[in-house]
């Protein structure tokens, strides 16, 4: 819970990880390249006071995670979204055993989501069933650019992925978190394209699809499909820290999301340990769309409350104290919000 003045915010950090990128866990050069890329994101977008050393960044451990999220980070509940990256790290990148044990020890604070890889075929379907039972899964995290033998990516609308989504349905996994990456087969196509999300969202209307980092670097494609599919949501992983380095750009991202997707389908995350939640939450509560971006309405307090926790709490059935709850906006299920006024709007952009 974060409070400022008379206002209180229930916080759900919808995308966190407990990773191990230390040298002894790196399988090859790509393990180093991957964590270096994350660390450069961290160095590039963090305020100086929040910077970690490279060694700290390689591995945090459960104790530090609990401290950063719950003791100093205002988080009420956090959701693990582990990336496997078995081709880069001996024991995987996301630490399944440590993270799931932590979640089992603190069920009020942590939810453990796992992952699957549709290229594991029939065997993987059985694995998914047993993982669902073992971890009590409500959600999975899918990294579509995961390397797997000769293959370096898959699509959500591949036949095998659809079979996995059918098993998700069967075992009660409702929330599919999608993270797009740079590789896909064939390489002729844009790997970041989200058209496959559109297809499965249409066919699996009973599942929620949360597109992490709101489709960046293809914000425009994401907004266009999300506005048409009521079960597609925006995750703010990676987008949040732009508040600090580039408030105008962040204002545009949030302004676009509120317009196309709406205030009930946007979820905050720190993307821990890429960043820590404390400064992101403090900054977001104080954030306002810069005045020069007059084409966007101001973000309201209720919108901030929903984004910071209420939306993800609803998706994951997390109990929220009655006094902190807010009802859904009276908005259209599909199509842009306020589009009926579009003709009168002045689209004087940045």
């Amino acid at each position, binding site marked *: 819970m974060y409070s400022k003045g008379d206002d209180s915010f229930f916080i759900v950090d919808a995308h966190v990880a407990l990773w191990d990128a230390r040298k002894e866990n790196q399988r090859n050069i*790509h393990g180093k390249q991957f964590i270096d890329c994350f660390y450069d994101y961290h160095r590039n977008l963090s305020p100086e006071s929040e*910077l970690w050393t490279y060694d700290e960044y390689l591995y945090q451990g459960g104790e530090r995670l609990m401290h950063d999220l719950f003791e100093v980070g205002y988080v009420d509940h956090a959701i693990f979204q582990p990336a496997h990256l078995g081709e880069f790290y001996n024991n995987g990148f996301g630490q399944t055993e440590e993270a799931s044990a932590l979640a089992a020890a603190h069920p009020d604070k942590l939810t453990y989501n796992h992952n699957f890889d549709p290229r594991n075929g029939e065997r993987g379907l059985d694995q998914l069933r047993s993982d669902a039972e073992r971890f009590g899964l409500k959600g999975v995290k899918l990294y579509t650019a995961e390397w797997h033998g000769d293959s370096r990516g898959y699509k959500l609308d591949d036949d095998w992925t659809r079979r996995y989504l059918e098993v998700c349905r069967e075992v009660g996994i409702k929330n599919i978190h999608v993270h797009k990456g*740079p*590789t896909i087969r064939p390489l*002729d196509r844009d790997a970041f394209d989200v058209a496959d999300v559109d297809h499965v969202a249409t066919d699996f209307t009973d599942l929620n699809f949360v597109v992490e980092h709101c489709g960046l670097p293809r914000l425009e494609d994401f*907004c266009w499909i999300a506005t048409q599919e009521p079960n597609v949501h925006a995750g703010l992983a990676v987008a949040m820290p732009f508040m600090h380095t580039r408030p105008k*750009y962040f204002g545009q991202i949030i302004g676009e999301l509120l317009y196309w997707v709406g205030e009930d389908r946007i979820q905050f995350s720190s993307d821990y340990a890429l960043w820590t939640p404390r400064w992101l939450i403090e900054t977001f509560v104080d954030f306002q769309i810069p005045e020069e971006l007059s084409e966007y309405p101001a973000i309201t307090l209720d919108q901030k409350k929903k984004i910071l926790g209420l939306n993800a709490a609803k998706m994951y059935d997390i109990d929220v104290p009655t006094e902190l709850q807010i009802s859904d906006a009276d908005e259209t299920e599909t199509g842009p919000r306020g*589009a009926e006024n579009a003709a009168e709007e002045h689209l004087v952009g940045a």
Partner: protein
Amino acid sequence: MATRHEAAFDALGTVIDPELDQPITDLDFVSSLVVDEGGNVVVHLRLPTSFCAPNFAYLMASDAKDVLKQLDWTRKVTVELDDHHDSPIINAGLAADAGYRGTFGHEAEDDLEDLRTIFLRKAHVAAMERCLTGLLRADPTREVSEMGQVLLKELPDDENTGALLRRREVIGLPTTSDSVVMVDHEGNKYAQIDVPLALRRARSTRISIDGNAHFCRGLLRTRYDDPDRTTVDA
């Protein structure tokens, strides 16, 4: 007279990062360029992360080799991409002039031309939005719904208009002064009722491209100003 080094650098300036719609020389992706007396050229390219998309990385590197080979004085042209997860694959492919399919083998199906086209169209959309938004800003009394009627000759003679004309030419749209500004990639105009939403959508494309370009520039600096990642102290 321009030196050969300058001529080679200028040629590299015509190679565009398709996602960011900016020349690789402006983006600081050319980390070194060496031209010897015999006309042999060696170029090293670098990108903001090891995990920049390999298809775009290959496209830029092979375009770089092509434009240098087209200069009439160049002999052996070597282009290498450094510090990328696919550096070995891409560099071997470039050295052997293996082409896209020869470079990526089973991961390549046809070619990268459709991908290139998608991004040329996006670049056009963003350039069009910049021009029309510029008009609306300059004269707040103008209605958004009128934007579908604006002709090229009504645009001010500035950088945004120049950029739009170049992008129209690239995707085969007319650049004559009586042409309508707001058209899709096939040159179709928008019905008045569709104009506000189409312009709104174009804006999200422009925000995306501009945002990515800024982030990539920042990441490249972060990466190469301190490649050993030791500046942050405990």
